[in-house]
């Protein structure tokens, strides 16, 4: 079974939970920029939460399924619809019949604070070859995923055989633990390098330079609109350091005073001062920021960070259990002829 792509979208890549264990030779972990929505899409499709999905950015692909199949969408709403037919909203699964053309062109009503990325799970998972232990696309290295690159017109993407396919369409039952607000807040743990307090007191805007490697932040004037005003940070705060290993979510402060927050495709080592690290629970928020989005950094502590992560995982598990119950009830009703 394959999905045939009539359009690739702006940046559509295959991502599973990431490529672990090769960072010591310079290979980024990759994986979904928003791990939460990636897992939700998989659970809705009846997959293991770590199965390979398609990560779509701002404007998604158009594809057709050769056979009937269950898909699920999570994260940003890309205004999905079946060509000539019904809408395909985010946060639920959809049954496709053979020949359906799925269009995910992007939401024309999206604002700067709308989510940036959507995840498409297919029952059975995207079945590209495993490279160095993962199906994730390593865009910088040109390997993994689908031929090591974003999807484009004419690609035929293989889909695995589903272990269990929910024959009913399911809706994600749990509320998003971090509902979209106009100004997104990233909770950050400080490092021994000073500077986070200075950054946390300001309003920021995601710069145009925002991709899976990292995002730049620009100072956001209170008057709004003027993104070119550089922050008046003490000159000694940022700078270069001896190159060391850096994690996803690290906030680097280069000498120019414009922070960089590292994404899932970040280089394994870096030489800029790291003044803080976004907590793991908030990486899902980080991965959904659009260029221009207003954002604030809030200092927190380890206990709060772990509690937030625990709450996210509990919500995911509760959602998964509710889906199983819903699907089980419907399958039972099906079997009983009702």
């Amino acid at each position, binding site marked *: 079974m394959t999905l045939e792509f009539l359009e690739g979208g702006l940046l559509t890549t295959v991502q599973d939970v990431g490529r*672990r*264990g*090769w*960072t*010591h*030779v*310079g*290979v*980024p972990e990759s994986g979904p920029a928003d791990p939460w929505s990636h897992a939700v899409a998989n659970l809705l499709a009846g997959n293991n939460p770590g199965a390979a999905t398609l990560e779509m950015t701002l404007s998604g692909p158009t594809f057709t399924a050769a056979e009937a199949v269950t898909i699920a969408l999570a994260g940003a709403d890309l205004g999905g619809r079946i060509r000539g037919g019904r809408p395909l909203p985010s946060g639920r699964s959809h049954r496709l019949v053979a020949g359906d053309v799925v269009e995910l062109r992007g939401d024309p009503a999206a604002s700067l604070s709308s989510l940036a990325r959507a995840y498409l799970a297919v029952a059975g998972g995207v079945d590209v070859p495993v*490279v*160095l232990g993962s199906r994730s696309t*390593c865009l*910088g*290295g*040109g*390997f*993994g995923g689908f031929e090591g690159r974003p999807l484009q017109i004419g690609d035929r993407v293989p889909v695995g055989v589903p272990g269990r396919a929910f024959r009913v369409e399911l809706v994600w039952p749990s509320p998003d633990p971090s509902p979209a607000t106009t100004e997104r807040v990233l909770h950050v*743990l400080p*490092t*021994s390098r000073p500077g986070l307090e200075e950054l946390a007191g300001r309003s920021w805007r995601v710069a145009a330079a925002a991709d899976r490697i990292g995002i730049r932040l620009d100072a956001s004037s209170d008057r709004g609109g003027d993104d070119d005003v550089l922050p008046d940070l003490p000159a000694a705060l940022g700078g270069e350091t*001896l*190159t*060391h*290993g*850096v*994690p996803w*979510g*690290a906030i680097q402060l280069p000498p120019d005073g414009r922070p960089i927050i590292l994404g899932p495709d970040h*280089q*394994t*080592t870096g030489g800029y001062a*790291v003044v803080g*690290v*976004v*907590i*793991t629970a908030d990486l899902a928020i980080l991965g959904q920021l659009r260029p221009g989005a207003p954002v604030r950094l809030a200092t927190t502590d*380890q206990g709060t*960070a*772990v509690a937030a*992560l*625990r709450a996210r*995982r509990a919500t995911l598990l509760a959602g998964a259990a509710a889906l199983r119950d819903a699907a089980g009830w419907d399958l039972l009703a099906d079997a009983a002829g009702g």
Partner: protein
Amino acid sequence: MPEPPVGDRAAFVVESFGDAALLVTLGDRVDPVLAAAAQRVAADLDAFAPTHAGFGRAVPAHASVLLPFDPMAIDVDAATALVRRCLAAPGSGLADVAVSPVPVEIPVRYGGSDGPDLAEVADLHGLTPVDLIDAHASATYRVLFLGFAPGFAYLGGLPAALATARRATPRERVPAGSVGIAGEQTGIYPLAMPGGWQLIGRTDARMFDTARAEPALLRPGASVRFVPLR
């Protein structure tokens, strides 16, 4: 930060680095001895704090090791205590850090379209291009660690006379295999990517290949020599 003696592992600084990693700092200078010590600490941590206990792969660099962990599997205090126990354990010392006696030879086409900055860099140092090639190719380099990009080796040992600032404007695309100089470092671009290094040559050696059991051609501790192709 006070610099501990390299042999005194118990004096290394261990601090949390976000909610899911620890950073072990051995020192704050570029020094092959520190880099080798970081490799040894990383190897010990990979053995002592394996993935099944909630730890990720250790990432060694010039004088530090980043150790990721899953905060749902192990809490930061327990992780820190485990790292301190590992550092305090009688190590096998630093003398035996693997240094391959036989250098890895990298064949390089210097100058021309393969090394578009060769003449300019030579000129900056008051050398002829041939002198610069001789100086670059007669040194023996040491792989300090890998990072930045898949298979990219940080090499120590560039003759001080060849140190050159990066280009004012980075190139949008540097071809894979390009050999360059940036500051006091020389290196080989494993993949085509943007970059600001001064390019003096190019090799056909595959620096990174996912089809190999060990995808990176250069390993930490290895000696490296550049061999000019005529």
